[in-house]
């Protein structure tokens, strides 16, 4: 009984955090976009700087008509937002926010996270297929190619860290970084991982799946209201977990030079990475699909293999 209660509370905590995080990140994204374009961004709703804008948008989305396209593939169309959102939430279980601030420390935490994030592709493809719309299907096909291509460098780039730490448990990996972060020996791995998570969250310059200037809205063209809102929720959740994973693997997790609580350091580093992702989004134009595939297969995968080779050689020869 206590286990069930604890599990329910944990799930509630994670869901609340995901929702709050998405609200804050959407507001932040709009603010950053505004200031990069010399505008101001949301301003009127709520407290300073329009900080309650996302809440107002959420209420609007909840109260919108639940529009269903004709010719949809019933249950697949209905399930797609849930399938897309669930992995984004489930990843939070294995992320160490602080020394003991982790919901469930698995000894295969890294494998758990990489396998769970791959499920996001399923939701995207279900949305594209179930909508009975050419733009959705095109977007989903692109998303499929893209996510499949960038899973590989993302996983390969983490192997260097695993070799250096000698563990797949994320808590152990962070504990091993108490002396020095893995960023500098693993700089190649970090770059590959960061580019790959940008591609996996479908963000510009890799937003081919939802390219609004070519594909209306990509795979979620036919969704509206709260169903539509689940996709951005999942996107911002995945963005946060990707950056949190980069912090955990390369930036020393909860370790920091000053006497702040561990989780503060963790959140500072993660949100700096999130900010950089937004900065990149509003700077770079969208790449073509062939450039995207070239970058993934011809550049990032060899780079991550070189990283593994270097790390392995160092461990075999020096240690």
């Amino acid at each position, binding site marked *: 009984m206590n286990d069930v209660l604890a599990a329910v509370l944990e799930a509630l905590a994670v869901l609340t955090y995901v929702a709050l995080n998405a609200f804050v990140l959407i507001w932040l994204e709009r603010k*950053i976009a505004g*200031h990069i374009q010399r505008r*101001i961004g949301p301003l009127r709703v709520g407290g300073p700087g329009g900080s309650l804008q996302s809440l107002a948008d959420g209420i609007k989305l909840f109260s919108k008509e639940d529009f269903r396209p004709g010719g949809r593939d019933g249950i697949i169309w209905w399930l797609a937002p849930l399938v897309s959102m669930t992995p984004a939430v489930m990843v939070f279980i294995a992320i160490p926010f602080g020394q003991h601030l982790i919901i469930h420390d698995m000894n295969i935490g890294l494998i758990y996270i990489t396998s769970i994030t791959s499920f996001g592709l399923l939701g995207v493809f279900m949305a594209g297929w179930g909508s009975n719309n050419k733009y959705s299907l095109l977007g989903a096909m692109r998303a499929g190619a893209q996510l499949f291509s960038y899973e590989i460098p993302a996983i390969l780039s983490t192997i260097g860290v695993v070799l250096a730490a000698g563990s797949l448990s994320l808590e152990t990996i962070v504990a091993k970084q108490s002396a020095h972060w893995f960023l500098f020996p693993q700089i190649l791995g970090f770059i590959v991982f960061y580019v790959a998570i940008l591609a996996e969250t479908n963000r510009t310059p890799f937003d081919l799946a939802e390219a609004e200037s070519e594909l209306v809205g990509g795979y979620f063209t036919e969704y509206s209201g709260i169903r539509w809102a689940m996709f951005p929720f999942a996107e911002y959740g995945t963005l946060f977990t990707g950056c949190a994973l980069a912090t955990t693997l390369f930036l020393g997790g909860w370790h920091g030079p000053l006497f702040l609580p561990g989780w503060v350091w963790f959140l500072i580093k993660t949100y700096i990475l999130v900010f950089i992702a937004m900065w990149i989004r509003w700077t770079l134009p969208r790449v073509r699909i062939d450039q995207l595939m070239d970058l993934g297969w011809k550049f990032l995968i060899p780079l991550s293999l070189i990283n593994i080779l270097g790390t392995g050689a160092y461990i075999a020869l020096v240690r």
Partner: protein
Amino acid sequence: MSLPRTVWNTVKSLVVGHAVTAREIATRPITVFYPEEKPEFPTGSRSVPVLKVNEESGYINCTSCGLCERTCPPGCIEITQAVDPATNKKKPWPHLYTLDLSHCMVCNLCVEACPFDALEMLDVPELATYQVQDLKFHKEQLLDLWKTGKAIRIAEGQPMPSK
């Protein structure tokens, strides 16, 4: 292009591009909070031709010669000359001067045609009304409008001294 050169160009363009956007984040936004904060209009902005009052004599400069009425391309100006009821002689000022802003295309031709310096372009753009009839301005309204704004003489390029 060789691979090292491609990589170098890529890294260079990434750094330059992000430096540009970082600079934009740091600079002040150019947004003007319009209803609360009025923007500075550039010299020569025009919204409606208005009738001028000679500040020395206190009378309007208009002699109702009708040149503006004839010049106006959309024909939005209507002038009725004043008539002395006793002698039935025409007087050199307008009895009625009507300007229909809903037709006016703010071309400045009336101001240029006026030989008596009786018309001026106003720079106050907030003249929207709920009824299109309300855009028909009479002599008194045009005189009042003249007092509200900073009228601009296009010909000499100099703003008028404030009233």
